[in-house]
């Protein structure tokens, strides 16, 4: 790092987003075995967790790999070769990468614009709330919402393309609209990643550059931007992964000329009933997904910079944005927020008219439909989400507590394994579960458990990370101090450790619940005659004729999730979340 800011930089060990463990010295291994065996409770917990991880993460993944690489008891590359030789599948692979890269690029730019405006443009609180609310809305939405709105706005008879601009026969299906829709859906992730980073750059550093005579552009180019580069890379990779895994948007918007892998794998299985082909396609998707995840986690996220100036407290007025630039920046952001609000207004409108586009008479009919015919889906989803919530919360703090505070063999391996389902695109996880639990010895398809397990093991890593981050914040000496002051270990746990873990518990269960309400890519393979989900019904309604109920379901999901978020953030505030577990980390997962 050159430039005027260089000397003020230090590299920080990344305890903020990631937990790094500097344990694993060979000499300690034997010792840790002995210690674990001497502590039966710890031993039992470790064994139980490993059993669960093996069952719900490693076993399905092993099944997926076996389908891909083993044929008649022998290792073979023939299945993979057959898929790779197929020009259409190759095309889908490159399309997926292209789409992911473009979404990463556009989403990061948009997210940076948003974050920069929010942090540096001296906005009033009200404006920042507007920006936050618009991005929050996107993060808690069920899939398809922006896709539905896109078709209505930009289709051949779209409100915008046809009625407003008078373009005839505009093709909405393809790369352009998928890119647009995914960029809008995922840019809040970039915003949430970049905002704290920009916030962490002390304006004093920029001030120094100004006082040395730099222009605003030069300061932006040589100070602000270089300091955010790791954050930008991180945001890009997160968006890349999100797009790579997205199944719902391309299913609606990509059309036939732009096939992508998750959609192809889904059609291969549900349409042609080719489990093997689906498994192989998922495996092909697994490679870039894993690569991006490892890159993000072990390389980029370790490269955060903070600025230490020695007089952090004395905030000076932020000068990095010229007064004349403030208005255009705000306008650009508000334009984006306006598009988002328009999408949702359209969605709500679709839910209260008889048939959008044909009969605009006001009706509550669609809501009556979802609360009668759709009641089972709502009921099932709430039960599954409700069951997953405490399980996910418990599992998250248990595993987080173990890897952060206990010494036992295979600790780091446990943490890595627990992250696998989170890192993989949902289509892969769903297909792996379907393959693994469809036949004896363990038949789980058709039960609620398989859906709950899928959600818990896929979305608990947010809770795990939050637990680890919280526990790492306290020096063990605090607990030691408490005990040396005469508190029993019980009191210490109750007064010191428990309040610290509770926010992570709520964050963890919050994520599991929210994703139970909104995720579809994995669980679409797992719904059954006994258990169905709102998101699957939305897709069903969309692909059938019933846009009204689909819109009504979507609005319902947004409302439920919004209420739950308010409840959880209330709880978090009560337990003084110490800035680590903010609502952002609930949603970023």
């Amino acid at each position, binding site marked *: 790092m050159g430039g005027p800011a260089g000397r003020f930089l230090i590299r920080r060990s990344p305890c903020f987003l990631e937990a790094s463990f500097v344990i694993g010295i060979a000499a300690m291994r034997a010792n840790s075995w002995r210690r674990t065996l001497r502590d039966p409770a710890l031993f039992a917990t470790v064994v139980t967790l490993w059993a669960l991880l093996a069952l719900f993460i490693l076993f399905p993944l092993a099944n997926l790999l076996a389908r891909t690489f083993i044929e008649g008891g022998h290792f073979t590359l023939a299945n993979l070769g057959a898929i790779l030789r197929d020009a259409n599948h190759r095309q889908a692979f490159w399309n997926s990468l292209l789409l992911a890269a473009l979404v990463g690029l556009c989403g990061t730019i948009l997210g940076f614009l948003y974050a920069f405006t929010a942090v540096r443009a001296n906005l009033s609180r009200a404006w920042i709330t507007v920006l936050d609310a618009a991005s929050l809305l996107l993060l808690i939405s069920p899939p398809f919402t922006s896709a539905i709105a896109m078709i209505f706005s930009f289709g*051949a008879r779209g409100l915008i393309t046809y009625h407003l601009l008078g373009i005839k026969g505009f093709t909405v299906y393809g790369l352009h609209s998928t890119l647009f829709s995914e960029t809008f859906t995922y840019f809040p992730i970039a915003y949430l990643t970049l905002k704290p980073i920009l916030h962490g750059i002390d304006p004093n550093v920029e001030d120094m550059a100004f006082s040395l005579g730099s222009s605003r552009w030069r300061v932006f180019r040589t100070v602000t931007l270089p300091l955010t580069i790791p954050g930008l890379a991180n945001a890009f990779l997160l968006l890349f992964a999100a797009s790579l895994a997205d199944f719902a948007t391309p299913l609606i918007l990509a059309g036939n000329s732009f096939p992508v892998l998750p959609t192809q794998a889904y059609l291969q299985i*549900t349409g042609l009933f080719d489990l093997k082909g689906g498994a192989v396609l998922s495996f092909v998707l697994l490679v870039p997904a894993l690569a991006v995840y490892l890159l993000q986690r072990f390389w980029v996220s370790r490269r955060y910079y903070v600025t230490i100036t020695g007089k952090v407290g004395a905030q000076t007025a932020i000068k990095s944005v010229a007064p004349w630039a403030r208005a255009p920046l705000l306008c650009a952001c508000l334009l984006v927020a306006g598009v988002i609000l328009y999408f949702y207004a359209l969605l709500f409108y679709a839910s209260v008219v008889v048939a959008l586009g044909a009969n605009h008479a006001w009706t509550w009919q669609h809501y009556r439909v979802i609360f009668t*015919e759709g009641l089972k889906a709502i009921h099932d989803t709430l039960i599954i989400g409700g069951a997953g919530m405490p*399980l996910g919360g418990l599992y998250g703090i*248990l595993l987080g507590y173990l890897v952060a505070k206990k010494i036992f063999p295979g600790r780091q391996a446990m943490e890595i394994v627990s992250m696998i389902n989170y890192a993989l695109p949902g289509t892969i996880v769903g297909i792996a579960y379907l393959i693994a639990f469809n036949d004896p010895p363990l*038949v789980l398809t058709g039960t*609620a458990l398989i859906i709950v397990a899928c959600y818990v093991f896929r979305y608990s890593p947010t809770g795990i990370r939050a637990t680890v981050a919280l526990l790492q914040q306290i020096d063990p000496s605090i607990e030691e101090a408490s005990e040396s002051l005469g508190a029993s270990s019980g009191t210490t746990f109750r007064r010191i450790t428990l309040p610290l873990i509770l926010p992570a518990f709520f964050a963890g269960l919050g994520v599991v619940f929210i994703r139970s309400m909104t995720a579809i890519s994995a669980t679409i393979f797992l719904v059954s*005659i006994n258990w169905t989900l709102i998101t699957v019904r939305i897709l069903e309604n969309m692909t059938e004729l019933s846009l009204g109920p689909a819109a009504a379901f979507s609005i319902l999901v947004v409302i439920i999730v919004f209420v739950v978020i308010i409840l959880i953030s209330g709880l978090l505030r009560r337990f003084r979340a110490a800035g680590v577990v903010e609502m952002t980390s609930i949603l970023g997962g």
Partner: protein
Amino acid sequence: MRFVRSWLCWLTVSLVLACVGGWAAAPAVAADTVNAYSIWPENWARPMFEEFEKATGIKVNFVRFSSGEALARVIAEKNNPRVDVLFGGPVETHAAGIKEGVFESYKPPSFAVLPARFKQPDGQWVAIADDPLVFMTNTKFLKENNLKPPASWGDLLNPAYKNMIQMADARTSGTAVTRIFSILEVYGRDENKAFDYMKKLRPNVQLYTKSGGGGTLPVGLGQAGGGIFFIVDALDTKAKGYDVTISFPKDGIGTSAEAIALIKGAKNPAPGKKLIDWSTSAAMQSLFAKYKINFVPAHPDVKIEASLAEVLKGTKIFPIDDVYAGENRKRIVERWVNEVLNLKD
């Protein structure tokens, strides 16, 4: 540290208990319910099943899938069936299922009176309705482009339809399979000629939709100019208030029987058979008119509803040969994916 230990224990135990609980909570088999995969959309299947419950006291648990998805599930669950009955769906789906050995023969009381094309000789499936394909176009689109409603398959090749036709994807939809076999029949089962036609039609296709009715809404809204759908979906679109025109090709179009089948190894075979008895009877099929379901009844005793008869008057409709279709379905669909769907322009 004793407290922490017990705390760990407590958490672990509750986690395990909850898992076991979730497992045990899976619903058991009940005597007075039947489980079904319905290929009919929910808004038609539900009233039928409610009427069935009224008539027999047997409750139908069902979930709706496109025909390809439903068949895929039935095959996947062959060793451990989750449902007792596959309800509805064009008969090629059932014909393909026979090859996979997923159905159990059952001949309901109506079996004897049904015409031959409405039953599989061994009773592997029995028809509950008949469903012809139609061309459906957006009336405003026709007017704007000075077009007459398409009256032959060739009319759809008109460049005015470029990028404006939506129809179903053969990978997931039975509607699409019926359509492809209709085209094969029109071309005297000359596969090369039929595929030539489909390739020529490809540039006019805006989107192949996942389900058979998927394109009706876009056509109704004018997002697409027209498409090929089952008559039930087309008339339903019209009934919802969309301004669409229904027409038939003079060179003929296929109709597909909608069938029901008992799943081999069904856990509730007795109520499953009752559902088949009732669905193939005049009792159910005379309810179509009441619920505005525009299927053509399969049972000879049920009169076709007057307005539906009016639509069908003077049209050339031929049945799809289910044996030929069942035998060739997989190969034809694969050829369609490779040559038509992925055609590079």
